[in-house]
């Protein structure tokens, strides 16, 4: 695959380092996205088209 996105992605990554902890910016973004989706899944209300009583 060619194009600027592919060129950008195939360049050496940027790493954040603090002591012996090291993480790539890409991994950090993915982890933050996963955590955000987890928090949203808890906080967002269930779609409530039918009342609980419908099933009875």
């Amino acid at each position, binding site marked *: *695959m060619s194009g600027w*996105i*592919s060129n*950008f*992605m*195939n*360049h*050496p*990554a*940027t*790493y954040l380092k603090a002591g*012996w*902890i*090291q*993480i*790539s*910016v*890409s*991994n950090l*973004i*993915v*982890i933050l996205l*996963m955590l955000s989706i987890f928090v949203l*899944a*808890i*906080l967002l*209300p*269930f779609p*409530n088209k*039918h009342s*609980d*009583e*419908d*099933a*009875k």
Partner: protein
Amino acid sequence: MSKVLSPKEEFDAKPWAGKLRKYDILKEGTIALVVVALLVTSLAFIFGSPDEKSLTFKGWAISNSDNFYATTVQELAGTSGTATYGRPYNTNGDGLNVGPLFLQKWAGVTQRINAANDFVIEPLMNQVQSPEVKAALSQWSTATETQRTKWATTYDDAITKVEGKLSAVPNGDYGPVPALANGLTEMAKAGALDAALLSQGGFFQTDSTKQILFFGDGAYLDDAGTAANLQGGTWGMMNETGRYPGQAWLWLYSFWYQIPPFTNEDSHPIGANADVYIMVIMGLMSLGLIAMPLIPGIRSLPMRIPIHRGIWRSYYQSEGIKRRKR
């Protein structure tokens, strides 16, 4: 005679008397599958996949000729990582162990590799060679095992003594080893070694074990791993080449490689056997995860951290169920 139930068993056996909610698991599963498939296809279309330049013996021999040459000598001397690895390739090493348990030995030799023959002699013999290399091959094949080892280890020691600087190696009785190493280096530079190693074993070749082991014995693969941040000591297990995200879920497995004593390969018994000790630790932790409902304290965590009450908050509110006091 019917069994007398305890109050808890009696409570558990009662039919559900609370509210019911319609739930179509097939519908939810189908929606999830379609959404994930669309996401994966779109992201793959937009971002593509890592497109790292291949590592080849040609690239190694051209970019670091001395290292390739010195590694070839190690293969002939039987001092390389592969030659001394032990099972499943040979019996020249004990392999990793946890106390008295030598796990590699259990598997036995399942893919026999003779480093000198498979990496050096056979590829040279399978190509048309110069008279000098032909003579060296003939001298090698007619010599005794003891004589071969003596030539190769003497030369290997001499190269190690001058820290790999080939021009500084003093003259000595190295037999055909310099000519063989030179022949293989020239063969690799021309690109013929890549083809020769790949063609071992059949028409359709998918087994790259030998190439990877030979690469691993030298500095070429190691340097490429370091440059791409893929070394175990720098969380490499989690990383991918380029700017692509890697296997973030392996953070815990990777974590152990960052702390002592696992960071020191020379410390015995743990550091030197880090791979197997970490495998055991992760195995025990996985067992702990499976046994979570049985571990006092851990099994009551949902009562202390009631995330489920947040998810099903409308149910708890409508039913007026308060948190149990502990």
